[in-house]
C-alpha cells in the first residue's frame, strides 16, 4: 500500500517505522528539516519537505495514486484541512488525529463532513485505557476483544503466587479454569508458550478469557482485584479531562492536581465532579497533605515524561496502591516499568496501534502489540470462503509461535482445542510472534 504521512513527529515517526517494516511504501511530509532528516536517515521512507496542506506538495507525493493519508501534525485544524484536500485530490482513505476536547463531541459530524475514514484521539484513547486498567486493578494492562466479551489482562507474577514453577498444562487441571496464558514476557523477550512452559517469578503473563473467568482466576492466585474508589490525577491536560469525566461516571472520587492556575479554573468548569487542586504534583508535601496514602490509584499524566516518572515514584513510596504513569517516548516504557511503577500508558503507542489496525484491513477487528510489535494479538472475523473454515484446528498445521487463542461464536466463548473448528462469522483471536497477520488465510498459509 502507498501511504502518505503528514507530520514527522513522534507519532508520525513511529507509524512510519512500523508501516515501512511491513512493506508499505511510506512517504512523509513535514515542514521541519530536522525531523525529516531523522526519518530519512533511519527509515526506509521517502521524505518531502513542505506543508501537507499544499496541493503542490501533495501532488508531488503522488496523492492520486496513494491508498491512505494519515495526518498527525500537532494542529487539529491542519490535520483536517490536509485530509479534506487529499480526499479531493483522489486519495482513497484518510485518517486524522483530532485531539482537542472542543471537537470531541462533534467527531461523528466531522467524520462525515470531512469524509474522514478514521479519527484518532490519542488522549481519549489513553483515558479509556487507564479506565480499563482501573476496572481490573490487579492487572498491568487490560485490553478488550470481541466488544468486551473477551478480555486480555497482563499480570506480573510475584513469588507469593502458587503458579510459580508450574507447567502450564498442569495449571488447567489444578485450578479448573478456562483462561489461556497467551504470551509471557521474560527479561524483555516475548515468548509464546506451549504446555511444557514453566512460569517463573517476575514474568509478565498475558491471560485471555471471559471477564468473569479472569476475575476468578486472579482471585485464586491471590491477586484479588479490589474496587477502586479514590483516584488522584497529576497534570490537568487533555487526558485528565477525558479521564476525570469517565471515572466520575464510574462512581469514583477524582482529585486533579494542576500547576497552572488558569488551567485549574478551566478544569473545574470541565469536570465539575472532581476536586481540583492548584499545586505542583511532584511536591511530596502537597501529595501527603492530599492523603496520597489513602489513594487507591495514582495517575501521572503531565506533559513531561520525567515529571510523571518522579511523581509516580513519590506516590509509590508513599503508599498509593496502584500507580500509573504516562510516557510519550516509547523507549522510556521499559525503564519506567523496571522502577516498580505498575502500569505505563503511552498515547502515542495507542495511536500507532489504532492506525496499524486500520491499515491491516477490514477483517481485523482489534490489534494489540506487545513490546514494539514483537508479538501481536489480532482479532479477525472469519470471512466466507476462507480456507481455514470447517477444518479441525489440529489439521491446519499452524506455524511456530502462532496460536488461536479464542473463538467467539455469537455469545459463546471457546478456548479451542485440536478438534474444534472455525465457522463463518466467528471472531477469532490469534496470537503470533514476529509475524503480521491481516487475514485468517495467512495463519494457515504454511500448511
Amino acid at each position: 500500500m502507498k501511504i502518505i504521512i503528514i507530520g514527522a513527529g513522534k507519532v508520525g515517526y513511529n507509524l512510519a517505522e512500523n508501516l515501512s517494516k511491513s512493506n508499505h511504501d511510506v512517504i512523509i511530509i513535514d515542514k521541519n528539516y530536522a525531523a525529516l532528516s531523522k526519518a530519512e536517515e533511519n527509515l526506509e521512507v521517502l521524505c518531502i519537505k513542505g506543508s501537507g496542506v499544499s496541493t503542490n506538495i501533495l501532488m508531488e507525493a503522488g496523492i492520486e495514486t496513494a491508498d491512505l493519508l494519515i495526518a498527525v501534525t500537532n494542529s487539529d485544524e491542519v490535520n483536517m484541512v490536509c485530509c479534506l484536500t487529499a480526499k479531493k485530490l483522489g486519495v482513497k482513505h484518510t485518517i486524522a488525529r483530532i485531539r482537542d476536547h472542543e471537537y470531541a463531541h462533534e467527531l461523528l459530524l466531522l467524520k462525515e463532513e470531512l469524509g474522514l475514514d478514521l479519527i484518532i484521539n490519542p488522549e481519549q484513547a489513553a483515558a479509556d485505557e487507564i479506565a480499563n486498567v482501573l476496572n481490573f486493578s490487579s492487572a498491568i494492562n487490560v485490553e478488550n476483544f470481541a466488544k468486551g466479551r473477551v478480555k486480555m489482562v497482563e499480570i506480573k507474577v510475584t513469588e507469593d503466587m502458587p503458579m510459580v514453577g508450574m507447567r502450564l498444562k498442569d495449571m488447567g487441571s489444578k485450578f479448573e479454569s478456562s483462561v489461556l496464558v497467551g504470551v509471557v514476557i521474560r527479561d524483555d523477550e516475548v515468548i509464546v508458550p506451549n504446555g511444557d512452559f514453566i512460569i517463573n517469578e517476575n514474568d509478565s503473563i498475558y491471560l485471555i478469557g471471559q471477564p468473569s473467568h479472569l476475575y476468578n482466576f486472579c482471585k485464586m492466585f491471590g491477586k484479588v482485584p479490589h474496587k477502586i474508589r479514590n483516584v488522584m490525577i497529576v497534570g490537568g491536560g487533555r487526558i485528565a479531562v477525558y479521564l476525570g469525566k469517565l471515572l466520575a461516571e464510574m462512581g469514583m472520587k477524582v482529585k486533579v492536581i494542576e500547576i497552572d492556575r488558569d488551567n485549574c479554573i478551566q478544569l473545574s468548569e470541565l469536570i465539575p465532579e472532581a476536586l481540583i487542586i492548584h499545586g505542583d504534583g511532584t511536591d511530596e508535601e502537597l501529595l501527603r497533605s492530599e492523603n496520597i496514602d489513602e489513594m487507591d490509584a495514582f495517575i501521572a499524566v503531565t506533559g513531561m515524561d520525567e515529571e510523571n516518572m518522579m511523581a509516580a515514584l513519590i506516590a509509590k513510596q508513599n503508599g498509593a496502591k496502584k500507580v500509573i504513569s504516562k510516557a510519550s517516548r516509547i523507549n522510556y516504557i521499559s525503564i519506567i516499568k523496571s522502577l516498580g511503577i505498575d502500569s505505563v500508558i503511552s498515547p502515542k503507542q495507542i495511536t500507532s496501534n489504532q492506525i496499524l489496525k486500520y491499515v491491516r484491513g477490514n477483517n481485523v477487528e482489534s490489534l494489540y502489540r506487545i513490546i514494539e510489535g514483537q508479538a501481536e494479538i489480532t482479532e479477525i472475523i472469519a470471512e466466507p470462503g476462507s480456507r481455514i473454515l470447517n477444518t479441525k484446528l489440529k489439521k491446519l498445521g499452524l506455524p511456530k509461535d502462532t496460536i488461536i487463542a479464542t473463538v467467539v461464536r455469537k455469545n459463546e466463548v471457546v478456548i479451542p482445542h485440536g478438534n474444534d473448528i472455525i465457522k463463518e462469522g466467528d471472531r477469532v483471536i490469534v496470537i503470533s510472534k514476529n509475524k503480521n497477520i491481516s487475514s485468517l488465510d495467512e495463519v494457515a498459509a504454511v500448511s
Partner: protein
Amino acid sequence: MNFRVVFKALGMLLVCESLLMILPLVVAVYYQGTDISAFFLGILITGIFGVPLSFIKTGKKTMYARDGFAIVALGWVLLSIFGSVPYIISGVMPSFVDGFFEAVSGFSTTSASILTHIEDLPKGILFWRSFTHWAGGMGVIVLTLAMLPSVGSGTVQMLKAEYPGPTPGKLVPQVKETAKILYKIYLVFTLLEIIMLKFAGMPLYDAFIHTFGTVGTGGASNMNASVGAYNNIKIEVIITIFTFMCGTNFTLYYQMLKGDLKAPLKDDEFRFYCGAIIISIVLITINLYGNMFSSLWESLRHSSFQVVSVMTTTGFATTDYNNWGMFSKIILLILMFIGGCAGSTGGALKSIRVLLLIRVMKRELLQIIHPRAVYMVKLGNKTVEEKTISEILGFFFMYILIFIAAVLVISLDNLDWATTITAAAATLGNIGPGFGIVGPMGNYSQFSDLSKLVLSLCMIIGRLEIYPILLLGIPSFWKKTNL
C-alpha cells in the same frame, strides 16, 4: 564502529564481486584465451574471503552513518584489491601496484590505463576491465543492495555514501527497490547501446566493451586509438548520445517513466549541464575550424565527441586532442573539473555543485550591495538548505586541496606541467586521459609506483566523493565509542 555489521556487508560485497567475475570467465572460455585460470582463481579467492564474512550474525544492530561510510570506503578498496587478482595472475600486469591501479581505474570508471599494447591482451581481461566500469558506474554497493538480501536496517547510509552528488535522492521509499529501478534503467540503456553499435558496424565483442565504457562513463576501449580506430561517424554519434544520457541524473528518467516527460526541462542542473556542453562545443569548433581541420563539419564532429566525453568524465577519444590549440585544451581542462550531473554515472565536482557555487557567489556579492537583505539560494523553485550549501563549499575546498596535494606528490616524477597537473585532475575527476604524456593516445605507465598509488587513491576519492576515504584516516572513526 559496528564491526560485525561492516564485515558482513563487506562479505556480501565480495560475494557480489565474485559473481561479477563469472561473466569475463565465460568470455575467456569462449575465446579460449590464456586468462581462463586467472578468472577461475579470481572467483575462488574472492569467494573464499567473501562467503564466510557474509555469514556473520549481526543480531539486532542497526547501521549508523559512519558504518555506512566505512562499508563504502573499505568496500571499494577491497573490491579493487580483489579485482586486480585476474590482472596479476594472468601476467598482464606482473606488479601488484600496476594491477591495483588498473582495477581502481576500472571500478572508479576512470580508464586511466598503464597498458601500452591493448590489442595484444587476452579478451577476457579486456572484458573484465570494461565490465568493472559498468559495475562501478552505477555503484557496486547499489548493485549489492539490489541483488542480495537486505543487510539490515540503515542501508540508506550505504546508498548515501556511494551516491554521486550532494543530496541523495531515493526514487521510492525502499532502498532496495530504488537500487533495482536504477539498475533496470541502466540495463535498458546498456542493451540498447549494444544493439545500436552492432548495427552501426562494430563487432559484437567491441560493442560490449564500448557500451560498458559508455554507460558507466568509464572510457576503456580495446583499441589503442580508442573510438578513433573505427573512424565511423555512426558509432561516434551513438556513443556521444549515450555518454550524454548517462551523464544525466537518472532520477530524471524515472520521472519521465512516471509520465512527467518535461522533467529534464524543468531541472536546473540539466539545463546547466546542457548549456555548458553546447557552449564548449561551439567555442572549440570555432577554435578548431581552420587551424586543425579544414572543414567545419569535421571540427564539429570531433569537438562535440570530445566535449561530451570529457564533460561526462568518460574519456573516449576519436582524435589526439593533445595537438589541439591551447584554448580548446583549456576548455577541456575546465570541463574535467565540472563533470556530469548528480545521480549519474559521471564523476568530478558534478554540475549541480558548480551551479550552486555560482549562485552562492552571486548571493555573496549581492549581500555586499544590500547588507541586510535576505537571499535564499534556490534550485528550481525550492530553497537549498544552508547546511547543504556549507557542505558544498566544504566539498569544493577539499576537492581542490586533494588535487593540489596529488599534484605535489606526482611532481616528484619530474614530468612536464601538462602531464603532472592533468594526471591529477583526470584521475580525481574519473576521466582517464589528460594531456601531455597521459593524453588520449598515451598512458600512465611512466609514473613511479608512489605516483601510481597516489593516483589510485585519487580515483577512489573522486568516485566516492572524498568523505568516505578521508574518514578512514581519522582515528576516532575507528573507535567503538566516540569520546
